């Protein structure tokens, strides 16, 4: 699933110091549950993103353990405190070892 995976992240680019902001993330991924069968009746092996993290300047905002019950094209919305200017790093960990990363800089203004 390493091909065609594209994260989308919504973060305001400029905030005031200490502000709490809303973040939305969406990534394209089949999230194959491991419970479906193909046309020949064979179980399709599980292949999901199993973890999602968001950090700001190295400190954790949220760390999510994901199970096969998370829908295709996983979506998360949550809030973060922004104490200073810096960079958000969003990371998705795939069962197959792939890691997808997206970064967003935020200025204070």
């Amino acid at each position, binding site marked *: 699933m390493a091909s065609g995976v594209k994260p989308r992240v919504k973060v305001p680019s400029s905030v005031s110091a200490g502000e709490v902001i809303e973040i939305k993330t969406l990534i394209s991924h089949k999230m194959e549950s491991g419970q479906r069968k193909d046309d020949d009746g064979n179980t399709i092996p599980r292949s999901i993103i199993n973890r999602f993290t968001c*950090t700001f300047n190295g400190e*954790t*905002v949220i760390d999510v353990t994901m*199970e096969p*019950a998370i*829908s295709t094209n996983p*979506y998360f919305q949550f*809030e*973060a405190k922004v104490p200073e200017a810096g960079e958000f790093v969003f990371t998705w960990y795939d069962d197959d070892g792939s890691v997808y990363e997206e970064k967003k800089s935020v200025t204070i203004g």
Partner: protein
Amino acid sequence: MEFSRRETLALGAGAAALSMLPLRSFAATADEMIAEFTGGADLAQDGVTLTAPEIAENGNTVPIEVSAPGASEIRVYATGNPTPPVAAFAFGPLAGSRAASTRIRLAETQNVVAVAKLEDGSFAQSTKLIKVTIGGCGG
């Protein structure tokens, strides 16, 4: 015997509009998993809010939100899914609130449970019945 189209359409009018699957539950396993998370501690019935539609238009994509002020972690279980765990949200020092939204899969009509671990070490739980409907058009 011959049906007009109107009659065909009206045939089901008396029946419930929702075709629901019977309530089947893997609650035992979900309960076990929750007990493992809480170490058997008591579960307060308030302290965590689970927001979800009463009726989901499609079980493949059901939007939910969990919120528990003061929580360090919130776990979500779908008691009627073949494997109940859905997600575990652990909040870090820069979390702006102890809340998160996502979209989940529900195999059938069932109870969804959110369990929050609060910073004082106690636990809270919230349960919501979500009806999963079956669409009329295969499209």
